[in-house]
Structures are given as C-alpha cells and as structure tokens.
C-alpha cells in the first residue's frame, strides 16, 4: 500500500498544498515549525479520523477558514482509492470514498493503513496508562475493525456506570433521604462484564502476538542493550494461561461484586479494562522511571515498529511514517533503524537536516517551507 497523492486545503498552516509520492522512501526536509509534521498528521487523520497531536479538530483548520479538506490517493494491490475528508470543527466530518459520499466518516477507516511514529510517542513509555491502553486499542481496531464497536460500547457503559455511582455518592454525601438509586447497578455490572470481557480477551490476545515483535524491534534499535518485555497488567486477578471470553466475563463479574463496597464509597468504577495497563520492562527493570531518555525513545519507537511488524505479519502492508526520529538517534541506531524499515512499501520521513537520514533511505526528497511543500529531487 502507498499514498500516491496528498492534497490539503486549509489544513493547519497550509492554504493549499499538493504532493505526489512514489512507493519506497520519501524524505520531507525543512526547518522546525514550517509544517512537516502537519503533512504526516493529515495522513494520520485519514487513517484514524483523529490527530496524534490534539484531541479536538479545531486546531486542524487554518485560522480564518471554516473547514479543512484532506484528499488522499491510496494505491493498494494495484488499485487506487481516493479518500476525501472535510473537517468541520464542532460538526460531523464529511467523507467521500472514490468520489461518492459515505454515510459516516467512519467508513473510510481501513482505506489507509498507517503506522506513525512521532515525538509525542515518548508518552507511551513515560506517560499515564491511558496512553498505552490507547496504543493497544488502536492496534486492536486496526487488526480487527469489529473492536471499534466493542471499544465504543465499553466506554459508554463505563461512563453510564460512573454517572450512576457518582449520583449515588453525591446523594449520600448531601444526606439525601434515598441515598441514591443503585437498583440498576446489577444491570450495568452485567454489561460492563460482557463488553469488558470482549475487550480484555482482544487485548490479551494482541499482547501475546505483539510481545515477540517488541523484543525484536527493541533489540534491533538498541543493539542488544537490554531486553524489552511487555506484559498486560489487568485490574483483576486472572488465571493462567489467559482464560477465554466466558471465563473473563465471570472473573470480571466476580471482581465487580468484590469491589462493590469501595466503588459505592468512592463513586467510580474501579475494575475493568479501563483501569488496566501495559507494563514495559527493560531487562529486570520497569522502563518507566528507570529508562534513560535515549532508551525511552528507542522503546517508544520499538512499540510502533512492533505494531508495523505485526500488521505486516497479518498480511497488511501499512505505510510507515517516521516524524522527526533520526535527529534523536546516534549514528549506529540510525543505521540499524534504516535496515529495519528500508523494506517498507512506503516510508515517509520528516527531518530538519537531510544528512541525519541514512543514505539508504534517501529516496525522493521534498522541501518544506512555510505553508508550502515541493518535490526537490
């Protein structure tokens, strides 16, 4: 799969820009702050309908414009597909696939498979568990789109259940006569256990499949300096080996019953996949808090490369985008990373200094200036 053409209108700093790409490596060169990342961000938006940098859409639209448009031509198995997205902040995005409008923008998901590594990914190692859960869930949905629904259902149930616990908590605190109506809590428990078990089963299976890829990728990037290991850490005790979905549902149900007292006291759901974490270790030590800046960086990169590897092992050939990665790596790591990714069907690299990019990845070169980008050889 590769992106043949990207056109942006009123997206971030670009009033209008159009770029054509070839398969293989492309390097986007330009000083800091001229909009290199905006280009990969736009591709990320096509792939996930969200930005990897901001949570809302408003910053994506150029100041003064009402909406932004991303047009992206993707070639997959010799067939080309045109994806058009119009981002209107505060409203539903409009989308077209192959020139015909689709009912929901969500339908364009899957048209572009992209693995994007960006400086923000350092948070995968250093940040809150929520970052790592999102990493797992995004990958889960990329492999099995059905999980998009599972994840949305689960999030909704947690929200509703928390609202119920919270209102009961507030009612008790203010000395309300009823002490809050918890008669529907059993119902929410049942739904939380059902959707939670499905999500949990998906994540456990994913982590099992991903683990060897992470170890391999970290080893390749860091050249044998410590072994990277990932492990899923659930918020409840699970039997070994990983139980099936029905057993997980029963386990979640039991854990909820056990936590009921403290949940009611604190007014929040304490058990379930939304409280889980993915632990990252380097040798015997946890990466968080122990890993150096360079190690954390390599680890975050390894997580993305592992996702890329796993998708390829599934028979999906994603586009790989590395945003501003080479400047952070020493010469040895640069070479090893280059070896690792040079086989990508398409690789997009951004950098401030072209010489930072190893020679074997210097394919087509694009010069990015304030608000414009052009192919430069």
């Amino acid at each position: 799969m590769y992106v043949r053409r990207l056109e942006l209108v009123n997206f971030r700093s670009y009033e209008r820009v159009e770029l054509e790409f070839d398969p293989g490596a492309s390097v986007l060169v330009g000083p800091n702050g001229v909009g290199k990342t905006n280009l990969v961000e736009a591709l990320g938006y096509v792939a996930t309908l969200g930005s990897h940098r901001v949570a809302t859409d408003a910053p994506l639209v150029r100041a003064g414009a009402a909406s932004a448009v991303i047009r992206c031509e993707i070639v997959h198995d010799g067939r080309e597909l045109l994806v058009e997205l119009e981002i209107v902040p505060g409203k539903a995005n409009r989308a077209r696939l192959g020139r015909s409008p689709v009912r929901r923008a969500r339908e364009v998901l899957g048209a572009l498979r992209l693995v994007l590594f960006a400086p923000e990914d350092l948070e995968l190692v250093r940040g809150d568990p929520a970052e790592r859960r999102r990493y797992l869930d995004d990958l889960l949905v990329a492999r099995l789109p059905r999980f998009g629904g599972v994840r949305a259902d689960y999030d909704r149930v947690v929200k509703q259940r928390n609202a119920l616990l919270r209102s009961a908590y507030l009612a008790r605190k203010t000395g309300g006569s009823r002490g809050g109506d918890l008669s529907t809590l059993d119902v929410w428990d049942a739904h939380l256990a059902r959707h939670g078990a499905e999500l949990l089963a998906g994540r456990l299976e994913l982590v099992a499949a991903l683990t060897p890829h992470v170890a391999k990728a970290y080893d390749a990037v860091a050249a044998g300096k410590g072994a990277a290991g990932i492990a899923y850490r659930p918020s409840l005790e699970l039997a070994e080996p990983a139980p099936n979905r029905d057993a997980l549902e029963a386990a979640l149900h039991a854990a909820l019953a056990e936590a009921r007292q403290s949940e009611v006291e604190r007014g929040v759901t304490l058990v379930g996949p939304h409280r889980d974490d993915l632990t990252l270790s380097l040798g015997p030590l946890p990466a968080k808090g122990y890993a150096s800046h360079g190690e954390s960086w390599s680890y975050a990169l390894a997580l993305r490369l592992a996702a890329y590897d796993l998708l390829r092992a599934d028979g999906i050939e994603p586009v790989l985008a590395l945003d501003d990665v080479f400047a952070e790596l020493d010469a040895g790591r640069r070479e090893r990373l280059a070896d690792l990714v040079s086989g990508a069907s398409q690789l997009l690299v951004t950098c401030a200094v072209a010489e930072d990019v190893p020679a074997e990845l210097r394919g087509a070169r694009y010069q990015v200036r304030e608000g414009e980008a052009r192919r430069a050889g």
Partner: protein
Amino acid sequence: MYEGTIQDLIDELGRLPGVGPKSAQRIAFHILSADPADVTRLANALRKVKDLVRFCTVCFNVAESEQCRICRDARRTDEVLCVVEEPKDVVAIERTGEFRGRYHVLGGAINPLEGIGPDNLRIRELMQRLGSGAVRELILATDPNTEGEATATYLALMVKPMGIAVTRLASGLPVGGDLEYADEITLGRAFEGRRAV
C-alpha cells in the same frame, strides 16, 4: 439580529430539535411571506397539540382520548406486549403491520448520565399491567444502544421470575442491503446472533 418580533420567532424556532440558526431564519421568513390562512392553521395546530393530545392511561402512547387507538382496538391480542422507549417507536412497529399485540411506552431508557433511572420511566405501570396475568410474552423493543440494552436487561431481570416469556428484538443486517456495505459493528453483531437454517 433582527428586530423584536421576527427575532423572537427565529429564537423560538431555533430551540426546536434539528433546527439550526440558519434554518430558523429561513422558516421565520417563510412564515412571514406565507398566506395568513396557512399561518393561522399552523398556529391552531400548535395550540391544539398541547390542549388535546395526552398520553394513553394504559400504554402511555400519545392519544386524543382516555385510551389510545391501539389499546381500544378489541381485535388485538392482550397476550403479547411490546415495550418501546418512545411513541414514535410504536409508529415504526405499526408500519410493519406484523404485530397484533399491545404496546407499553416507557418514555425513555435508563440513562444515569442524564439522571434517568427506573423511577423516571413507566416501569411501575408496566409491572402492574403484567400483574393482571393476561400477558404471556413480553417483547423488549428498546433501542439497540447501550442505554436501550441496559433497560432491556433490567426489565428481563424483573419480569422473568413472573413466568412470562421475555424476548428481545434481533439486531442484524438491514434487509435489501449488501453485506459489504454493512458497518463492522452491525456485521459483528449479526455474526454473533446468527442462527441455523
């Protein structure tokens, strides 16, 4: 901003569901230029809907008398009762012409985020109806979303011990559609709910 009366109308129209400021303005100017008789008819319809329409005392569907048309219909069976969230769901099911039982309109679904619990819905009234013993099957036709599913589960837990058969509408593929165009959530659920042929 327009002056006084016309802006008042635009503001009122803009508070209606699905009507944005632009549409409100368009409707307001349409009314302004319309035939006075048409406008009077619209005004009367608006006034009458609040004066005359009320809720059926049995099923809580909209009605113009004590009981709604469906509850009064002696040809329908009392043995099957279909629970829906809103009166418009009754209309949707009636359009199929398949269902010959009675309805019960809950007036919403359990939704803690909006502060709606079982006490805010017509669940006590439903239990009273079921207590009469005439109903043999309860069909749960709440929406297939998180809140509708939770409401269905809640009702099922309450009603099953009464010895009444409880069923839930199937969720699955739209008829006349192409499999490839079904979204992955619908298709995933249809897979889960597949049956032997």
